[in-house]
């Protein structure tokens, strides 16, 4: 297995009085797509937000390429090459699509070749390049949100439920974009509820329950074992 680009070692995160993460251990190998699966409310989003520094880990280490970033400020984590796509998209509605993208390219001007590649995977962004992002449809906003992370080559992408609430046609556009990103050798930690999308994209899998990773392995192994899927994700309460 390749060297890990990201590893979490015994990470505990509290949000107010709730102990959301209770000792998360996981690794994201470089150049692979690692799926983070599990029921709602088990701590998947909190895991990504803890990596980004939005929630601070009370305990544990978060290693990005061997450097502990558990206490690093969020902007520095981003500038270390972590592209984050939050669940709520977080686009800047009053700014144009172009301005959203320019802001996301933090290391310098947008590379035209990279921009053209993004236009090829998300054609509506080219059409609405000068329009206010707030006027885009839900699917187009999600495209913009992912495109902002993809506008520069990142060391690691953290993507939170990119297909949530989208129409099937848009889901396939998202899946294609992520496949192309994967083909470029990107390292991705992806939270996804849609198992067919997860199956098609994932190399490795980490399954969470009750604030911990309860199973990790290869996607092929999980995809081929219906009983395991049922135990880990369908009936995880009994399985815990």
């Amino acid at each position, binding site marked *: 297995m390749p060297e890990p680009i990201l590893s979490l070692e015994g990470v505990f995160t509290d949000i107010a009085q709730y102990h959301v993460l209770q000792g998360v251990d996981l690794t994201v190998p470089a150049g692979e797509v690692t799926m983070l699966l599990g029921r709602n409310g088990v701590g998947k989003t909190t895991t990504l937000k803890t990596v980004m520094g939005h929630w601070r880990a009370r305990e544990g280490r978060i290693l990005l390429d061997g450097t502990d970033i558990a206490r690093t*400020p*969020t*902007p520095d*984590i981003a500038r270390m090459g972590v592209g984050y796509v*939050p669940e709520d998209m977080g686009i800047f509605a009053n700014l144009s699509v172009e301005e959203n993208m320019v802001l996301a390219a933090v290391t310098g001007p947008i590379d035209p070749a990279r921009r053209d590649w993004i236009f090829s995977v998300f054609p509506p962004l080219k059409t609405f390049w000068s329009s206010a992002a707030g006027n885009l449809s839900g699917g187009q906003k999600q495209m913009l949100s992912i495109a902002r992370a993809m506008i520069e080559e990142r060391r690691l992408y953290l993507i939170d439920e990119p297909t949530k609430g989208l129409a099937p046609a848009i889901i396939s556009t998202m899946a294609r974009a992520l496949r192309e990103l994967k083909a470029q050798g990107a390292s991705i930690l992806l939270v996804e509820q849609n198992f067919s999308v997860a199956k098609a994209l994932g190399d490795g899998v980490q399954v969470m329950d009750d604030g911990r990773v309860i199973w990790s392995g290869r996607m092929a192994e999980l995809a081929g074992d219906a009983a395991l899927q049922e135990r880990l994700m369908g009936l995880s309460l009994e399985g815990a």
Partner: protein
Amino acid sequence: MLVKLLSGDSPRSPLLALILLAILIALAFAPFLFPGIRSVDTAARICIFIVLVASYDLLLGYTGIVSFAHTMFFGMGAYGVALASVHMGRGFDALAVGTLAGAALAAVFAFLIALFSLRVRAIFFAMITLAVASAVAVLVSQLSQITGGEDGLTFLIPRELTPAFRFGDELFGVRLNGKLLNYYLVFLASLALFLLLLRIVNSPFGRVLQAIRENDFRAESIGYRVVAYRTTATCISAAVAAFAGALYAVWIRYVGPDAVLSFDIMLDILLMVVIGGMGTMYGAVIGAVLLLIAQNYLQELMGLGAGAFEGVPILPELLSADRWLLWLGILFVLSVYFFPTGIVGRLRQGR
């Protein structure tokens, strides 16, 4: 060329463009179009308030920070000019030193307030600015040996900016004297400061501010240090407010707590930015023009109205000049009701 001057931020509404052009022409030729001490005085105040309100819009509209200390920064510029003129003697050097010292002090104060309060929730920033502004206003009133206390300071400005200085006879019936030069100093400096603010909000820095206003965590996760950007915006806004204060002091040749530090000015700024439209810059122009004209002429207009309806029941009472604040209040409520995004926002939606 014009679009470049406006930093690519055109009014985006033909009607708005027309109104702004009319205001620009009216202000540029105010001494000739509306001769008379009072009307030129109103025009100069409009110029200064446009800058003051626009600098507040940089904070409130573009960065999403509520501050109650804007009058304090305005006052620092004004007192800077007054104190420099008193101690250095009349002269342009005193104006320059006073203005720069006032702006620098305002920026330092803004930096300190921001450093202590912007890390926490925005409401604390608002409360701290309120406290600091009140404390400074009291301090200025108390330190009468330095600031003149409640009486304030009158001072001499360079002779070239006073009515005593003549540089010709008359042009279109207007005396060519230092007061005219003073007006054009105020007008051109205000125009330059407004264009500078327009440049700032349309720069990459301004875009980051807008991103922070919309979603600060998202801006951080892209790689922008929110506190640093907010602090910088606060300092720029304070320094520009101080410049406006310096212009105001040069124009009225007097500073005092009521004239430059009063909380009424802060309320006026808030009203102007809300009526004009937050986060638009041009809203500052519309808001300042409307409110200052209303403040200066509504009373008179209502007096005329009351006279015209003499003999009719109730109406003269309602239109009595003493009730002008009531009508100003009603105008404000109606404008917020009908133009929740401000007049500029409404005009842009209606395109």
